[in-house]
């Protein structure tokens, strides 16, 4: 019996083998090519071009001017104040709506998954429906409802005998209004994540706990939520990016960050720098600083919350 001897191919052979594989499976590559072509053009190229742009000064029309690290220095100088304010807003908004929305989505998912409620599919659809509406239309509508004099919410408050709230006229109430809009719009999405996560939890676990005498609430907190941890982390990371990246909500509800930039998110600010100030280089540099921050934040979240036994 001859022993198989491993033949180490040369580099040239390896490329030939690779090419042969590609040709053999060429139709597979053709069929996935639309995604890759679009990704290269609209995903990868802008990312790389943005790095290049961040060292230039460019108004989108004229010639580009190489300015080195000046755009990055903008972040630490006087001009960076608005950028850091938008980051602060992102952090504040995160704490204002993410824990609430995530918890609510878990509860709703559990309730609507357990078939306790009749017409649970109907409720699921209703809760998810805002996700497929135009956020722009919703933003304008909510703005009308949040009007201090005569808006729907204040009318309801007055009817209930409660004091009226200066919703969009006050720094903190404007943030609350924005959170209301965001939770309305995105609760369904998070609920869907949790529902999907719940499908991976075997029923027997919860049933066993209930038989052993645990209350449904205990079962929720001791069994379901810990098992949903990966999904929760996923949803929270998306929500983190979301709270810095709220765009149509801010543009339509608070005229792009009013009052006094209390609701200005980083994404809106970057958009303004690029398309209002026509500073594409500066916007690119700021975008990369923003990316670095989010990346670190996400890393921290995964490390800290992800790796507990």
């Amino acid at each position, binding site marked *: 019996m001859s022993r198989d001897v491993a033949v180490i191919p040369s580099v040239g052979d390896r490329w030939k083998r690779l090419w042969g594989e590609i040709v053999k499976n060429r139709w597979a590559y053709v069929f996935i090519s639309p995604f890759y072509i679009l990704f290269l053009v609209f995903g990868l190229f802008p990312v790389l071009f943005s790095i290049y742009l961040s060292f230039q000064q460019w108004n989108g029309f004229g010639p580009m001017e190489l300015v080195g690290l000046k755009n990055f220095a*903008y972040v630490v100088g006087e001009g960076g104040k608005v950028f850091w304010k938008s980051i602060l807003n992102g952090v504040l908004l995160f704490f204002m709506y993410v824990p609430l929305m995530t918890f609510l989505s878990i509860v709703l998912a559990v309730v609507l998954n357990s078939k306790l409620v009749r017409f649970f599919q109907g409720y699921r659809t209703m809760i998810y429906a805002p996700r497929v509406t135009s956020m722009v239309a919703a933003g304008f509508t909510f703005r009308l409802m949040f009007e201090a004099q005569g808006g729907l919410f204040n009318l309801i408050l007055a009817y209930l005998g409660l004091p009226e709230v*200066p919703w969009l*006229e006050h720094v903190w109430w404007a943030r609350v209004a924005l959170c209301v809009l965001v939770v309305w719009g995105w609760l369904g999405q998070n609920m869907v994540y949790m529902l999907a996560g719940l499908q991976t939890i075997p029923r027997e676990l919860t049933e066993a706990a209930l038989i052993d005498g645990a209350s449904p609430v205990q079962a929720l907190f001791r069994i379901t939520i810990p098992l949903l941890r990966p999904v929760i982390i996923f949803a929270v990371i998306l929500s983190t990016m979301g709270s810095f990246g709220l765009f149509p909500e801010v543009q339509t509800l608070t005229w792009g960050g009013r009052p006094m930039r209390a609701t200005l998110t980083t994404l809106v600010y970057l958009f303004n720098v690029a398309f209002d100030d026509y500073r594409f280089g500066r916007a690119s540099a700021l975008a990369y600083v923003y990316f670095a921050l989010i990346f670190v934040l996400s890393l921290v979240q995964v490390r800290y919350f992800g790796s507990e036994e």
Partner: protein
Amino acid sequence: MKRQIVSWFTLGVILVGLLAACARPTPETVEVEVPVEVTRVVAGTPETVVITATPEPAAPEPEKPSGKITIWGWTAAIRDTLEATDVFEDFKEAYPDVEVEIVYYSPDDVYTNLPLAITAGEGAPDICYVENSHVAEYVHMGGLLNVTEHLQPYLDNIVEYKLYDCEKDGKYYCVPWDGGPVVMYYRRDVFEAAGLPTDPDEVSETIATWDDYYEACRTIKEQTGSYCFAHNKANNWGRLYEMVLWQQGLGYYDPQTGDVSVDSPENVATLEKLGLFWGEDLVSDSLEWTDPWYEELGSLDQPIATLIEASWMDVFLKSWIAPGTAGKWGVAYMPTFEEDGVRASNDGGSVFVIPEQTQNPEAAWAFLEFAMLKNEEYVLKGLAISGFIPSLKSTYDDALFLSTDSFFGGQNTYQIYADVNGEIPRAGIYGPHYAMMNGAVSVAIQRYATGEATAEVALQAAADEIRANLE
């Protein structure tokens, strides 16, 4: 063989799908139809509308331009005003080989699509309608056609301030249409109840300075309980502040040197003067262009006493904001900041620009010259229909400027607009960086109004931000 055909077909479908995904969506286009329905202003049209200017027959040029031109603009200005003047039919007669296509975009869409088209190098219209507040930005970005030579014969007839925003390095890049001369609209019924004069000349005399205005507002509040004017705090857009700065020849920057002047002592003093009205609760908190603001203007029992705004507000009040208050308004000159100051300012105004990309610059210029410069007829009609005050000085001699307006109690309002229009000083408000400067200063005004900072501190912060931004 069959499998191969299916495979190639599928590949073709995928590629077509890809191409379709990359296609640029075309805007809704509307061809100009002859004739056009005209909806005239309902309430308070001028008593006598006599347009004496006869259109000069377009002098046949050695070679008349031909081809197709596209105009971008929004419906209020193009469809409801320009088209209603019949200029497109007359232009077609004079230049039969030029085909005009009109594309309606909302203001936001114009201001998004025009710079995109310019920076992309294609897709721009032959003529675009933009406001004065935005045109300087496009002039400085580049990509607009230099029309200095064409404009030369008409320069003397155009009110000076209209061209400041269209000028760069001694060249002009636009054709002006309407202006935004600022006046003080006031409610005669409220003034009467407060014991103030109601005749416009007397009002202008009594409320001559902002100190007089302050006193009058206190009287109005005491006697009638009405607020003097609307000036929102937390979401302030900064427009009133701009109008008062413009009147003094001040601005966000010095028009002569270009230096940022947001934190100058004069700018601070101006803001503090407006602050007096907030301090004594003399002004309402309604934000312009929202329902509470419309209600105040149209109200019969709890109206707002005055409104300092440009002449184009005239038609808005009459037609849709406050048609039920016909006869109750008057128009006076705006109060000055200091004694013997100029009683004129500007808010708004619009122009037409020709992007350099145009394939048909001669036809584009021919239209703008025909509609805006050579013939007075169309801009005068624009005034009668929509209150667009012309920028051509010679039009002010027309009999239209002798007409009276029942909405304003039988007053000759056009004359006031024309007077003010001719006096508007040069100021550093509009300019290539207007949006950014207005944004920063609005925040400062909001902070001052809500008591978060003093005027000096707030404006200083805004000035620092603007200077850093401009580096």
